[in-house]
């Protein structure tokens, strides 16, 4: 047992050292803020696809999906299949457009379309959402390290947070993409190949174990409704993932960093293909666990129990893959928050005339500050991590209608966008964080999508046809209010 733990701890230590090495190695590739934030727009299709996939394949799924499959059966595939469906639809709507805008952040695009008011409101929200997500990943991954080493949880959080920060501060998106790539390779090796082989050789074929679980678990969607106002439903998984992806800064920057517009589309499609097998693996593990050990009282512990049945080498590989999955999600959000800070706050209000080369040092400082704030919250307020998803829902999902209108509806106004965003942020906090309405009446994502759309369209129609602009001028992006030092 001790030697098994030694192999696992050694593997994790080696992995962490490799991540730091990559960060230091790619530091030499960073000469401008475009290099730091967008990897010099040199990202290849494969690397971008792996980077996108890594945002989805998070460590949180390790506890949630096998547990859901253990309780509810194959419908658990929707946890990640919803992401794949949303990503394939997204591939034909946003990536090419995002690449053509030339922007660093989705909020910079809002600045183009709606002007500074919408950009500022959305920037504050996006930073809050990113920090909530980083914090959740640090706490989750720190918990894995703590469980492995026996250290107190805060020590695990500290180690994970510092290592993530080191490679993101040194290499920016370059480090994130290169580490994500190798993290995905580990995932493919151990999760995609190791897990099904372990299940097959240890417990027998699927048809053999299928006779030992309740028949309803093997049907789709089992006891879960297809649609409904509450969560989860089959459709709800797709809508939730679409909400996070479509207006998510971590996704936007992946597309604007790809070499060509066609490459951006292919990256999204390939990411869907990369994640597809993953959708079925964790549910398969949950169903096997149900067949072999139907007495597990805490479904979140299902995957942990399976790992305890593996050889130390396979368990080490599996753990590193899970660890990598969490870290790759955290690094994406560290960089997302940095981009927003740099481009939408620092460069707008503090150093408007700085060149791309002059912004490298501030980029690193901002990354360090974002990382330290998130780490501090994860250390001193770890229970806040449970609000991660609620805060992302609140601050990102209302931006989806605002983004789609910015692309296709010339009549969308800054008044509609700014007020819709502000009202939805407050409503989301009330509905999804401070009251249980999201569990009893309707899920926050539906409430926010509808509210955002109605306010955006309604206010824009009033501004365009009745009142005229409520502040500033009618077309902020096409006037001099943005300010050009001519």
């Amino acid at each position, binding site marked *: 047992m001790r030697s098994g733990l030694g192999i696992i701890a050694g593997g994790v230590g080696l992995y962490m050292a490799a991540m730091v090495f990559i960060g230091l190695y790619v530091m030499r*590739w960073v*000469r*401008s803020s*475009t*290099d730091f934030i967008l990897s*010099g*727009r*040199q990202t*290849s299709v*494969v*690397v971008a696809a792996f980077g996108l996939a890594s945002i989805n394949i998070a460590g949180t799924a390790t506890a949630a999906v096998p547990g859901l499959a253990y309780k509810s059966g194959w419908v658990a595939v929707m946890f990640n299949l919803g992401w794949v469906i949303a990503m394939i639809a997204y591939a034909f709507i946003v990536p*090419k*457009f995002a*690449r*053509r*805008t*030339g*922007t660093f952040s989705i909020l*910079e*695009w809002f*600045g*183009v379309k709606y*002007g*500074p008011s919408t*950009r500022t409101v959305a920037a504050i929200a996006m930073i809050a959402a990113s920090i909530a997500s980083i914090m959740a990943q640090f706490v989750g991954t720190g918990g894995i390290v703590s469980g492995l080493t026996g250290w107190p949880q805060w020590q695990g959080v500290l180690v994970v947070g510092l290592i993530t920060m080191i490679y993101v501060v040194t290499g920016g998106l*370059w480090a994130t*993409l*290169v580490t994500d*790539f190798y993290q995905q390779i580990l995932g493919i090796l151990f999760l995609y190949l190791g897990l099904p082989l372990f299940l097959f050789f240890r417990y027998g074929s699927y048809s053999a174990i299928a006779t030992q679980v309740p028949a309803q678990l093997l049907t789709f969607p089992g006891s879960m409704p297809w649609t409904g106002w509450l969560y989860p439903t089959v459709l709800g998984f797709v809508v939730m993932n679409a909400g996070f992806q479509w207006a998510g800064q971590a996704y936007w920057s992946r597309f*604007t960093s790809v*070499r*060509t517009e066609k490459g951006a589309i292919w990256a999204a499609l390939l990411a869907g293909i990369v994640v597809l097998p993953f959708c079925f693996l964790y549910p398969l593990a949950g169903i096997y666990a149900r067949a072999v050990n139907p007495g597990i009282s805490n479904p979140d512990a299902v995957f942990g129990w399976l790992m305890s049945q593996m050889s130390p080498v396979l368990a080490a590989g599996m753990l590193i893959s899970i660890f990598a999955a969490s870290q790759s999600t955290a690094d994406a959000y560290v960089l997302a928050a940095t981009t927003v800070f740099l*481009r939408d706050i620092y*460069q*707008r209000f503090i150093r408007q*005339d700085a*060149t*791309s*080369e002059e912004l490298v040092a501030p980029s690193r400082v901002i990354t360090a500050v974002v990382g330290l704030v998130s780490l501090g919250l994860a250390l001193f307020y770890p229970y806040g991590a449970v609000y991660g998803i609620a805060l992302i829902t609140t601050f990102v999902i209302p931006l989806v209608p605002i983004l789609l209108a910015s*692309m*296709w*509806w*010339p009549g969308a106004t800054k008044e509609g966008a700014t007020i819709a965003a502000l009202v939805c942020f407050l409503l989301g906090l009330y509905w999804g964080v401070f009251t249980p309405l999201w569990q009893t009446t309707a899920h926050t994502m539906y409430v926010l999508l509808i509210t955002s759309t109605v306010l955006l369209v309604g206010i824009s129609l009033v501004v365009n046809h009745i009142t005229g602009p409520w502040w500033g001028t009618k*077309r902020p*992006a*096409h*006037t*001099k*209010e*943005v*300010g*050009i*030092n*001519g």
Partner: protein
Amino acid sequence: MVKGESVVRGIILECIREGRPTLADFVDCTGRDAADVMAVTGSMQEEGLIRSLSDRGIGSLTYELTRKGEGLLPPLDESGRKLLSGYGLGSADLTILKTVAVKGEMLQDEIARQLKLPNDETISRLTHLVEKGYLLDRGLFRRILRISEKGRKVVTQAS
């Protein structure tokens, strides 16, 4: 270096003439925030110098020159005219092609450094050359460029 509106306008007109007519090209070539660039394209549209291909969707981020806008551009010499009308390229593009042809393969950063081009402008030019088939790119992480047969013909004929 701070670029004023007149400089930004000149760069935008030049970009469109050389077949790099998107907002992304303008942002890369001017080094400015997209909102600033869009403010300039807005006023240029109002003055009738350029027009966007559509008022929505991807066409709204793509521009073309009007006659009035073309008139503001400095005239090209004979070889510049030939290069532009024959291949849709500018003289800096030809320099890139020649450099890559001599070296065989080059990293994106190397091209910027060797030709002393701004990093972000190089990105725009290389993307254009790859999309038009004059350069081929590969490389899992960093972008490695080499000249295509089509690009080699341009170098031979334009020289």
